[in-house]
Every structure is written in C-alpha cells, then in structure tokens.
C-alpha cells in the first residue's frame, strides 16, 4: 500500500519547492514534480501546505520516571507529534535520574511499545547527577543512550568534567553541557539588566553562563571531545563559541525557541509561564542569538520542553520553578521565528532536522529525500487556531502562548509513512 502526498511545498535540506512524494513501506520511494496516482495510491492532497521533514527536538524533559504528574512518555510523545516532532531526545533529570542502563532500557522499551514519536535517551554524566562520580556511560551507550548530560545542573567540578569528556570521547558520544556558574546565578530568577532592576527580581548575570561556556570550550580543546552547549542565551556565550569554532575546537550548540521569541522585558507581568533557565535574554543578547543562528554559530533549534503541573506555576514569580512547555508548539514556534525575524525558512528547518540528524548520527531522517524514512509534517501556514490548555497534549500548560491566537497549524504528522497526528481527528 502506497501513499501519495500531493501538491505540497517542500522545505528541506535536499528539496525545496513544489513536489509530490510517494511513500511505500514507511520510506520515501520517489520525489517528483508530479506523480500521478491513477487510483493506485492513497492520495493526500496538501496543496497550500508546507511539507517539512519530521522535526528532531534534541532537548526535552519528559519527566518519566518520577514526575508523572508533570508529564509521561505517553503525553509527551503525543505532544511531540502534535507539534510536528517525530524524533526527540529526553534529558535524564528524572527521579531516579537516567544514570544507568536499566533506566535507559526502561525508557526505550516503553516508548517503543507506545509507538508514537521516536525517543532518544540522553544518559547522565555523573551518578545521581551529583557531579561527583562518572555514571556508567559505556553501559548506557550499549543500552542505547546517544549522548550524556547532567542538564538542569552544571558539572561544577572542572576535573570531573575533564574526565567525563575524555571517557565519553572513547565511546564516541557527545557531552551536552548545561553551562551555569551557580555561585554567580546566586539563586536569581531572571537575566540581570535594566528590567531585573525595574521589576525588582533577583538577577542572574549573563556571565554566569559564559564563564562556564568558556571553561567547557577549554576542556573540549584539551580533550578533543565533542561538546554540545545546551540552550545558549547570551551574546558573550555565542561570541566565545564562534571563536572556538574558528579555532577548530569540536563544539556545537543549540538555542531554544523561548530565547528567540521572548526577552526579559516580557516579564513585566511576572508571568511564571515565561520563567525559564537560562533566563530570557535582554534585547541585546537576543540580537546576538539571531546573528549566531544566521551565521551558523548556533547549530540547532530545540524546545527545552519543561512541563510543570498548574499548581507548581500558579505561585509567586520567584517561587516558581524554571521551565516552559514547548513540544506541542514546535512547528508553530519555528514558523513564528521565521515570521518575526525574517530568517529563511529553509535555514530554520535544517537547524531542526538535517543538522541535528548529522550531529547525532541519526540515519535516514532529518531530510526529505528518496530512501529516507517518511517522517513528514504537513503545515498550513494560513490557518489560525486558539491555543488553549485543552488543545495541548502535554500535561504542561506552562507556555506563554496559552490563550493566544496562533497563525499556522500542523495538519498532519506522518511517521514512517503512517499518519500519527491528524488535526481533523485530534
């Protein structure tokens, strides 16, 4: 049984423009200007829609095990498909943390049974994410882990980080670093600047991030290990990373949609749905992020999907946990970045498909080309809808988009040729 996706506007690394896509056995069999069905194929008419490769979100928190009241694999993976994400990686800051092979296997096994979006698992760098002893990275790799991170916390001890990087290099897997100098963040809640002063919110200086980015660049230089910097948010960080790349140090980084779409000024209403770590950037920092995204200093786009239960966010700003829910809105936020900043769609799509697939050696995905898995997102850029808590599949309703009218809508998500999300059916 073959499916024909007809009349869509493709945006991907290999194809851009109006093409028909013929799918068979879960893979893309043929791409051509016009393929005629002659009644042989199941036809999906997608004229007036954009067609993207299934998105790859390399930074999410799915909360299982331990925080199922915030999110489960089931709700998180459904939210992903709703947002056009067909492959995603989850961070190990669960309870207990993903710091051993049994926990890696648990997540991979469970996600396989759920048969929703494809889950990749990131294991912890240190046991219990305590920053002291190396976790069993080798065993986790054998169980299927694709990278290591203590995300949520930095590995404060530089010596431990050095050894972790040397060890991960042997395994051939990257380390993803949450760069934060805790003594400098000093229990703060938003980026330091005019607005933190004006709103009277305890500040986190920009260098709390860049000092740690600088350290990790030096350790990457020393060890030769591929270091991926999570959620960069400051001008200083991107400028250090840009220089490190020029110096040939194997470093990559990501930015979240939150940091591209909002600034510190947006906290004037003390809305906890905009409280995130690293904190929302100043205007100046945000402009540096745009620039870094355009010149390729920033490699990939992620959500840093961090769902919380309503009662955890309905508190005073400084008492709220950090984090924004994002999976449901992945394609919408990417489109919003394009609309607001005028960054070319193809570039943005590649930063969320082709480039992460290449960085993490994910085969047969991240592009629209013959032979690849038929992971596709059909997106209608003209349709508008209202983002309400009940329209989100994630248990985390903590996004600044709740209550807002949104332009553009994911119509269908296909995974290996199969319709896994359909806006009509919900």
């Amino acid at each position, binding site marked *: 049984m073959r499916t024909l996706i007809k009349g869509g506007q493709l945006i991907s690394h290999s194809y851009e423009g109006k093409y028909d896509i013929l799918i068979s056995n879960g893979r893309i069999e043929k791409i051509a200007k016009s393929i005629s069905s002659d009644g042989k194929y199941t036809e999906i008419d997608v004229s007036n829609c954009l067609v993207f490769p299934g998105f790859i979100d390399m930074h999410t928190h799915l909360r299982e095990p331990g925080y199922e009241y915030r999110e489960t694999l089931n709700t998180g993976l459904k939210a992903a498909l709703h947002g056009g994400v067909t492959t995603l990686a989850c961070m190990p800051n669960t309870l207990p943390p993903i710091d051993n092979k049994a926990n890696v296997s648990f997540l991979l096994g469970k996600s396989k049974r759920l048969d929703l979006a494809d889950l990749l698992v990131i294991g912890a760098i240190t046991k219990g994410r305590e920053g002291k002893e190396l976790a069993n990275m080798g065993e986790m790799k054998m169980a299927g882990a694709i990278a290591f991170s203590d995300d949520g916390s930095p590995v404060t001890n530089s010596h431990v980080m050095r050894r972790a990087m040397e060890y991960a290099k042997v395994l051939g897997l990257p380390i993803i670093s949450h760069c934060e100098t805790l003594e400098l963040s000093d229990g703060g809640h938003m980026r330091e600047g*005019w607005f933190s002063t*004006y*709103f*009277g919110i305890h500040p986190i200086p920009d260098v709390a991030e860049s000092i740690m980015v600088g350290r990790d660049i030096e350790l990457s230089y020393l060890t030769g290990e591929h270091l991926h910097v999570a959620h960069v948010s400051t001008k200083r960080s991107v400028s250090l990373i840009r220089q490190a790349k020029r110096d040939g140090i194997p470093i990559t980084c990501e930015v979240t949609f939150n940091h591209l779409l909002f600034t510190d000024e947006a906290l004037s209403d*003390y809305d906890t749905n905009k409280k995130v770590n690293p904190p929302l950037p100043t205007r100046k920092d945000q402009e540096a992020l745009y620039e870094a995204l355009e010149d390729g200093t920033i490699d990939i786009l992620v959500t840093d999907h961090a769902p919380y239960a309503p009662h955890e966010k309905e*508190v*005073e700003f400084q008492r709220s946990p950090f984090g924004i829910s994002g999976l449901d809105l992945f394609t919408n936020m990417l489109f919003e970045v394009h609309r607001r900043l005028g960054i070319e769609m193809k570039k943005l799509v590649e930063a969320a498909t082709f480039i992460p697939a290449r960085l993490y050696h994910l085969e047969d995905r991240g592009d629209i080309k013959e032979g690849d898995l038929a992971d596709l997102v059909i997106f209608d850029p003209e349709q508008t809808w209202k983002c309400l808590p009940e329209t989100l599949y994630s248990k985390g309703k903590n996004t600044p988009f709740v209550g807002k009218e949104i332009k553009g809508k994911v119509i269908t998500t296909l995974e290996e040729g199969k319709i896994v999300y359909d806006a009509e059916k919900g």
Partner: protein
Amino acid sequence: MFKGKDVIDVDCFNREEMLHIFQTAKNFKEILTRPIKKVPALRGKRICNLFFEPSTRTRISFEIAEKTLSADVTNFSASTSSLKKGESFKDTILTLSAMGIDMYVIRHSEPGAPLMLKRYTNAMVINAGDGIHAHPTQAILDGYTIWEKKKNFESIKIAIIGDISHSRVARSDIKMFRLLGAKVVICAPYTLLPMAIDNYDVIVSRKPEEAIENADVIMGLRMQLERQTSGLFPSLREYNEIFGITQARMKLAKPDAILMHPGPINRGVELDSNIADAAYSVIPEQVTNGVATRMALLYLLFGGVQVENID
C-alpha cells in the same frame, strides 16, 4: 481619574494626579490635628490589609488612615494565617475573595505579588511593598514631605544614599522624584547598586560628599546587617565611615536642606548617631505624612472629590 484604580507603583499616576494627591493629603493632615479624628468618607467600605511579610510601620499607618475614614478594616497577616499550614497564595486569595472585600492593601516579600493578587480578584489593590520591586505609598509620602517643605521640584537636588539594590523604597522614590522633575543623585558602594540604575535618569556618584554637596534633600536608606555577611561590604564600621550620613557631611548640603529616612533607622550605620534628631531631620514628620497621604489616596480611589467640606 482615581476611582477604582490599582496602585502597583508610582507610575500609575502622572505628575498632575500626583500633585492632586498631595493637595488632598494636605487637607487630610488638618483632620489629623482635630480632637475627634474621624470622618465618614469610607463608611461601609471593606478594606483588607493583607500582610504576607511582617511590617509594623506601614500596616499601622494604613490602619489608622482606613479607620480615620471609617472604613471596615480586616487585618490578615501571614504569621497568624493558614499560609503557615501550607496554603498557597492563590488559595488564600480565592478564600478572601468570597468575603466581599472592596480593596486589598498588600505587603509581600515577593515582587509582583500585587499583580498576581489582581489575577484572582476584582477588588482594588494597593501595593504596600512587594519584595524589592516597589513601595508606592512610601514614595507618595516622601514626595509629599518634600513638596510641603520645598514647594517646587524643578530646581532641587535630592541625594539618596545607601543600599539601593535591596530597596523598594529607593526604586519608587527615584521614579517619584524624577516624575516631579527633581534632580536625583544616588550614592552607594557598587555592590549595592543594581544593574543599569542610570536608566532611571539619575546621576550615580561614588562619593557621598559629592552627592550631598548643595543638595536640598538627603535621604538615607536602611542598611541591613545581612548584607555584610553576604559579602556586599566589609563591615558596618567601614560602611559608616565611607558612606554614612554624618554631621560633617550634612554641612556640605544647602543650609535649608532636610534629612529623610524611610525607617527604621540604624543609628551609627547609615546615619550618624544623633543626626536623626537634628533640626534638619524631618523623619518624624514623614510618619505623620504617611497617614495623611494614605488617607488621601484611599479617599480618591474610592471616588472622593472635595475634601474641604468633609466632616
């Protein structure tokens, strides 16, 4: 222009409105000197003083203002409430909201708490201090005190000396004084100045002598001992020596300069031991003005117009 308004910070009002509050306060100040200190202006209005953070001065000042205007007053303080038993801010407000309250006066250790309160109630909200964000009624009383003494703001220099970083009073006062057109100079060790403070359109001085020189108003801010232990300055002794407002430094000010302080005072720290009692100190008067300005504000927010004929 006042009725039904929420007062989250000084910038809820423009210059004219602020001067109108001062004029109204002046009339109320007279009432406070009468033998029977009570007018029926707010009879039947229910005001809840919601104090999530301990406060004596501000709470008593509001309470006297409310009672003088004959409002029904309910005091809610976190130390005696269900908050101690773990009830959330939101649930507390939802419970109180069912009790027909017309106005909340809220003090909270968290910035933004008055705006959060606003999400769960239709009653008017007055911010009586939220974290290090704002303290508009203190700024109104400070502005009034200067207005009474100096009449116009355009030609005066106000020096604010002390811990600006952790001061909601300083933040609201600066906005107030700039709104009224005064020149504002602030002075503190840089460890106690928040980022980008000059965006308030103030002059930042490193030397208290420079800040005080030719000033018309000198305002000290309370220095808390815990700032020393958290490493923001080496010792209270050194702080007093370099940044304290002393008799000698006061001599640099204009001859008719006044000394202000939002209280409570740390004698021997931000102010030299006796200068709070000197002739140029208006610190006790600030307290009286606090009641009068709060009366004026409450009166106007509940729709009052003419004070002259009130009795």
